[in-house]
């Protein structure tokens, strides 16, 4: 069955903008383009086009990773232009068509991408109203737009598309173009149903994994059995009996199979006889934290330095210290990474679900010694993406295989590849110290974070690594220094990150990178301090917070969770229920979250059951409240999974947790209830909601366990075995 229908489509609506291309109908986008469409950030047409039939095309460099941001971006554009949502089409993440708005990560899609889009729409709106004003002989501010039609005096009407001149919108972005008043919003701030959901519940939605091209072949990669193993010998005759094998592709240590059908590729990759060298380069996981502590420090980053914390600690009347660790996590998308690549001479077109189409283009260009312009990289939504997972790597795999067979090649990773070869959230270790004066005031706070060096840069493409090609990779754990600094007013504070030369498994960012680990340590340690000082966890935070918006969040949390009237746990019962609280001002500059977890602890078995979460969030302006609620639920549930049970396992050669049995995640019977209160500030900047809530889940669970049984959990995940050890340690001390 051929899902592709060639057709030509002319996006002629904005005059100068003429785009013609062969479109895979199922996906509604260009297969090959050599398009002269502006994509720079200073031009309205980079973001918007108005077609002759009135359709508004939104071009978004931010992509929908399964969060619903596509619908939210459409709401923003539709509302600012006063057109119905059904009149808007969104094209996302196409390096020939969409502006480079940076990586889709860090809860910035609305905060950055949405704000840019709104400004483009507002600039267009003003110009369109001016054009209509001229036509009507009326002042533009006397006009209004309804359902895509400008309405003037005497009920004169003109549709927006009729106002487009021969040169299209031809407008520079203008930050002074007036924005619609929130009082006039018709779509923004409303529970608009997501545009992608009907197709997703009926099977008509095209995921990356569903995308096909005519003549497309199927590829699978044969990964080494040890991370650094090299190929000694390949016996191609070992797959000779499989019908449909087109080619065994080898480049250095990159090895793959291309076949006419997917099953033949899978069987071939399993059956191919390969001798690999031995490689034993990973540390002993049982001593992971000693390894982290001993890893060479390249330099220190001091993220806050107030007063003299060393002196304050020396002169403190009391002191407290603790160490926190957070396990290595994998992304674990339900759909393994997938990409399709096609070469036409020295031009590469690649379809994939990578979160940064523009950055991946640079990496693919570098890998194959091409200019960026020779690579056309196109985003198609894949399974949920929570950071830099395997999609980029699958793109390189597909390109490596396609180059050898003169046909488009689709690669989908197998489950073991996804679990074994996606880059991991690195192991994170934090030492915390605090000092107090005789009156119980916190006088000193120090933290030392042990974390790999680097930022959210390019993560090397694994296929390129094996093929000994340079994909611009560098150590890139993500923006892991965020939220090492604290939101509390303490006179002497020093927070230091020791930037490590290496980490056992190739790192990258997974939802709330660094922020989650740092918040686990900060908010758990602050809870320890409060307990040490005999303060209520809420009161302690209110006392040291100097931020009115933050205090409002905490007060509303107290109301929502009935915090001040909460029952006192019976710490000696076999099963005890406790409540833990935490707060974050994300990266100290944006979304506020307050959270309470109610957890049940079984003293005998060590089993912890987080059964209810209360969440208050202030993310400024809310575009789609139901979308935000969906994200908050997802943040909580996914992070309950991470905090309670997830830990990547490895031996001295490779990752060994290669399926859902060895890397279990949350299942339905374990799912907690989530209760929330959203603060909407329609006049304010819309901050992100895609990850801040996640940052607080581990710490609220551990604080709840302390409340329940008086035992501190300082190591994620909180497995029953580890909790039992903590209980035994506590009973001995």
């Amino acid at each position, binding site marked *: *069955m*051929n899902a592709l229908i060639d057709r030509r489509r002319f996006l002629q609506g904005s005059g100068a903008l003429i785009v013609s291309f062969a479109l895979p109908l199922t996906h509604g986008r260009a297969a090959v383009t050599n398009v002269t469409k502006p994509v720079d950030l200073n031009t309205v047409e980079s973001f918007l086009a108005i077609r002759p039939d009135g359709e508004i095309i939104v071009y978004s460099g931010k992509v929908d*990773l*399964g*969060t619903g941001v596509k619908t939210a971006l459409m709401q923003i554009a539709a509302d600012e232009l006063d057109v119905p949502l059904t009149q808007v089409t969104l094209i996302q993440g196409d390096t020939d068509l969409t502006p480079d708005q940076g990586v889709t990560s860090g809860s910035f899609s609305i905060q950055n991408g949405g704000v840019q889009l709104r400004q483009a729409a507002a600039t267009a709106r003003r110009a369109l109203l001016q054009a209509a004003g001229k036509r009507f002989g009326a002042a533009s501010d006397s006009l209004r737009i309804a359902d895509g039609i400008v309405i003037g005096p005497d009920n004169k009407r003109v549709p927006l598309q009729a106002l487009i001149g021969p040169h299209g919108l031809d407008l520079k972005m203008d930050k002074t173009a007036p924005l619609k008043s929130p009082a006039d919003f018709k779509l923004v701030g409303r529970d608009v*149903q*997501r545009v*992608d*959901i*009907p197709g*997703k*519940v*009926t*099977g*008509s939605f*095209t*995921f990356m*994994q*569903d995308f096909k091209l005519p003549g497309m072949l199927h590829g699978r990669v044969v990964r080494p059995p040890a991370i650094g193993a090299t190929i000694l010998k390949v016996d191609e005759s070992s797959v000779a009996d*499989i019908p449909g094998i087109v080619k065994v592709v080898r480049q250095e240590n990159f090895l793959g199979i291309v076949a006419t*059908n*997917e*099953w*033949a590729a*899978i*069987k071939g990759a399993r059956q191919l006889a390969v001798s690999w060298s031995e490689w034993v380069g990973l540390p002993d996981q049982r001593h992971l934290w000693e390894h982290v502590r001993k890893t060479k420090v390249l330099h220190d980053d001091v993220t806050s330095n107030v007063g003299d914390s060393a002196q304050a600690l020396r002169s403190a009347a009391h002191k407290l210290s603790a160490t926190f660790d957070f396990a290595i996590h994998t992304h*674990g*998308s*339900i*759909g*393994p990474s997938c990409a399709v690549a096609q070469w036409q001479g020295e031009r590469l077109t690649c379809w994939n679900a990578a979160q940064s189409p523009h950055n991946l283009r640079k990496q693919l260009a570098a890998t194959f010694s091409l200019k960026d312009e020779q690579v056309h990289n196109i985003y198609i*939504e*894949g*399974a*949920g*993406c*929570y950071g830099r997972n395997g999609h980029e790597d699958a793109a390189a795999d597909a390109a490596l295989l396609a180059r050898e067979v003169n046909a488009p090649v689709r690669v*989908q990773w*197998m*489950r073991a590849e996804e679990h074994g070869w996606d880059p991991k959230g690195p192991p994170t270790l934090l030492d915390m110290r605090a000092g107090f004066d005789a009156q119980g005031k916190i006088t000193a706070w120090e933290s030392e974070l042990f974390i790999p060096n680097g930022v959210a840069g390019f993560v090397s493409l694994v296929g390129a690594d094996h093929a000994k090609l340079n994909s611009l990779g560098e150590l890139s754990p993500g923006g892991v220094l965020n939220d090492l600094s604290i939101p509390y007013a303490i006179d002497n504070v020093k927070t230091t990150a020791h930037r490590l030369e290496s980490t056992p498994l190739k790192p990258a960012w997974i939802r709330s990178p660094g922020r989650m680990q740092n918040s686990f340590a900060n908010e758990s340690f602050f809870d320890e301090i409060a307990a040490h000082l005999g303060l209520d966890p809420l009161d302690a935070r209110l006392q040291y917070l100097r931020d009115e918006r933050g205090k409002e969040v905490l007060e509303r949390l107290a109301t929502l969770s009935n915090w001040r009237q909460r029952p006192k746990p019976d710490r000696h019962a076999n099963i005890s229920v406790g409540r833990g609280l935490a707060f974050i001002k994300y990266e100290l500059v944006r979304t506020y979250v307050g959270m309470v977890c109610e957890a049940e602890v079984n003293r005998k078995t060590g089993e912890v059951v987080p059964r209810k979460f209360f969440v208050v969030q202030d993310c400024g302006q809310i575009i789609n409240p*139901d979308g935000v609620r*969906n994200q908050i*639920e*997802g*943040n909580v*549930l*996914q*992070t309950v*999974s991470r905090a309670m049970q997830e830990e990547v396992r490895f031996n001295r050669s490779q990752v060994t947790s290669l*399926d*859902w*049995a060895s890397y279990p*995640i*949350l*299942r*339905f*019977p374990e*799912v907690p*209830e*989530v209760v929330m209160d959203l603060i909407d500030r329609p006049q304010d900047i819309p901050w992100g909601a895609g990850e801040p809530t996640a940052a607080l889940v581990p710490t609220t669970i551990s604080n709840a366990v302390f409340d329940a049984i008086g035992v501190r959990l300082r190591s994620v995940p909180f497995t029953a075995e580890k909790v039992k050890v903590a209980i035994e340690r506590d009973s001995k001390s």
Partner: protein
Amino acid sequence: MTQFQLNVNGMAVTATVDDQAMPLLYFLRNDLGLHGPRFGCGLGQCGACTVHLDGAAIRSCVYPIGNVQGKVTTLEGLGSGENLHPVQKAFIEEQAVQCGYCINGMIMQAAAFLKRTPKPTEDQVRQELRPNLCRCGTHLRIIRAVMRASQA
């Protein structure tokens, strides 16, 4: 090459395969272009590939095509367009999707379950969906959607 006669979504189809051990999933997706069932693990561990065989939920990623006897129904055959199955309708009403990759399995598992157990408790729904994995954390909405469908 072996040929099989199959009934998929009420239509008679002929499958021509090299290997009778090939899981049904690949035939549905690649030969029939039915993308409702999805490859998630190839191990029967996650449920993304779920289809109905004579009304029972099975994992098509590990079900050899040579063993298929009976009527196969995929998400597309469950309902589409204006003619949605009550479970599909409830998933839209509850907006019970994040990325949606697992949703095929959730809907197919739930639809088979509700046929056997039309008025389940929430706890029964949780137990029934226990083998199905969702990574985005949409579980609460999925539970609500299944409960809503059972009350429709």
